[in-house]
């Protein structure tokens, strides 16, 4: 006897398969989608003296990695206070996706192992449309280890490069609520974060603290801000790093968001 939840699921799945059939028969998938789209822009600023990035202990594969100046990447503040690597993403569960985005985004999201660190340090992936692939540019073996909640964990060896086909691809199957840490079991100082989502509306702030989420549907959307030091990036206005915004067509400017240094202490 199907349970209450079971029946509801069955109904939802039936509706979902009808949707798939409609798509296959050429019915536009975004019938209810907004005709207008807007960008969300702004800049995160660390409201204090830029902290010194500590040199990390490099005690493995020293022949290769010892020659690089490897420093802590967990808090990257630019010369004029711009804070890099803040994830800002749509928290609302259902969001219309601008059809132009699929064509404009790369099919793959790449993580490189270069000079004994992960490059880039922060990534996001629209997992139903984009593939995660990882390469090794170093002459030593590297390892990629991550455990997304409720999704398949990975622990991959990447043979030394160059001269070998050492690219590995990986598929995520589930949205995550917060970014997933990536580690290397061989080199404990290496660290990166990836956020798999079922929509492309994720920005990661650049070295100068600026960010842009392009082509959001107009209307009310809830956003989430997250940083690896603070977790949910709370401000006096953003409880648990969340805020709702009425996106309008064109550019929606959040301006400068000043962040108190005590949020990033550890």
């Amino acid at each position, binding site marked *: 006897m*199907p349970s209450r*939840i079971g029946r509801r699921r069955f109904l939802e799945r039936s509706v979902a398969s009808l949707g798939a059939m409609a798509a296959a028969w050429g019915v536009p998938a975004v019938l209810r989608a907004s005709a207008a789209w807007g960008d969300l822009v702004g800049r995160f600023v660390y409201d204090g003296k830029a902290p010194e990035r500590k040199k990390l202990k490099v005690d493995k594969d020293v022949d290769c990695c010892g020659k690089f100046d490897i420093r802590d990447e967990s808090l990257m503040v630019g010369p004029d206070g711009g804070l890099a690597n803040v994830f800002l993403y749509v928290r609302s569960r259902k969001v219309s996706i601008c059809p132009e985005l699929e064509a404009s985004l790369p099919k793959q999201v790449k993580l490189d192992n270069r000079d004994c660190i992960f490059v880039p340090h922060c990534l996001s992936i629209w997992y139903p449309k984009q593939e995660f692939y990882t390469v090794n540019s170093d002459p030593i*073996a590297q390892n990629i280890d991550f455990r997304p909640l*409720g999704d*398949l964990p990975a622990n991959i*060896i990447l043979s030394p490069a160059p001269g070998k086909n050492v690219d590995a691809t990986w598929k995520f*199957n589930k949205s995550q609520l917060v970014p997933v840490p990536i580690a290397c079991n061989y080199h404990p100082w290496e660290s990166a974060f990836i956020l798999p989502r079922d929509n492309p509306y994720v920005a990661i702030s650049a070295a100068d603290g600026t960010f842009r989420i392009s082509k959001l549907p107009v209307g009310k959307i809830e956003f989430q801000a997250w940083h690896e030091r603070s977790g949910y990036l709370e401000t006096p206005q953003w409880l648990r790093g969340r805020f709702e915004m009425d996106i309008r067509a064109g550019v929606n400017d959040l301006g400068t968001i000043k962040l108190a240094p005590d949020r990033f202490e550890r």
Partner: protein
Amino acid sequence: MALGSPFRSALRVALAVVLLAMGLVAASGCGRTPPIEFPLNLEGREPASVSPKQAAAIRQALTELFGTPNEPRVPDGVPLDLKRLAMAAGAVGGDAQGRQRGLYRRHCVTCHGIAGDGAGPAAAVLDPYPRDYRRGIFKYTSTRSGAKPIRKDLQRTLYRGVPGTAMPSFAHLPSEQAEALIDYVIYLAIRGETELYLLQLVVDEQSYLPPDMDRVMEEGVLPVVESWLLPERNQQEWVVTPPPRPEVDRPEVLAASIAKGRELYLAKDSQCVKCHGPEGDGNGEEKELYDDWNKPKKGVTPEQTAALARLFKLPLQRLRPRDFRKGVFQGGSGPADLYLRICVGIKGTPMPAAGPAPGVPGPLKPDEIWHVVDYVRSLAAGAPTPQ
């Protein structure tokens, strides 16, 4: 036949007295065991960070989906046999047909705990700790990197036990009972991963209470169920069957294979020596190794590690890479077992998959893995390390 009114009143009084007496007995705890509950998974969390309301909402959602230790149930779409679960669950005993009940509590609970948290009463003195099923990760599988075990993998572990650990062989159990236990372990694993999702949703995300059960099914339960079904349904892609082992029937052929295996073992590509050491004695340069269950207990500084300790039931336990010379292999010491360990790795540990997988070339080809197996087996057989 209607009873007279005075008689009915007397009956009511008598009934009230009996109920009161029963209530008193119950309140004094005489002759009654407390109800068995699944403890909430608060590992790694400040207990105060979960409010009583949140804890109650998570318990309620889990009970709605999975029942209780005495009366398990599963939501639709979870392919587990309720009859088998009933056989494994509940108190130790037998049914009217003489079949055993409460198999999990008879055989497993002392080490693995009522919720499968790997922290039963005996756990603290064991090294390695018993498996905590609640992350849905099982170490010894024939499935590709990342995938859940197939049923056969759990059967193998149950029948063989885990050599070198406290996990004994349950080969003596009738297959009906073994299958019931395997269903129950998968049940605890799916329940455990759902619980982790609920903690994230209710506590970290602070969602409205009670949580939206459709969302819990869609984001919490069904992806976990899908991950269990994936390798079972698509064995061609996800399950590794070791290819036929090259003939090593003559001593010189075996010696050549061992030499080749040693070369691959020592090569930079495979990274074996990093943990297992050049001599294969488990004494590589990597000393700070932890499995997925212990990693969260490790802070950056010793002070942080000490502060974290109070948030976990069991103390931090370091992982020791296998010393091949001892000849004891937890996942089995047959050539095919060792092939699988190298090819797909050991889930939940730093031992990665060295074999090829879809999308991942891996450093060792199948024939190369066989050479490494021959080398490792030669060390286990007490062969001196070739110079």
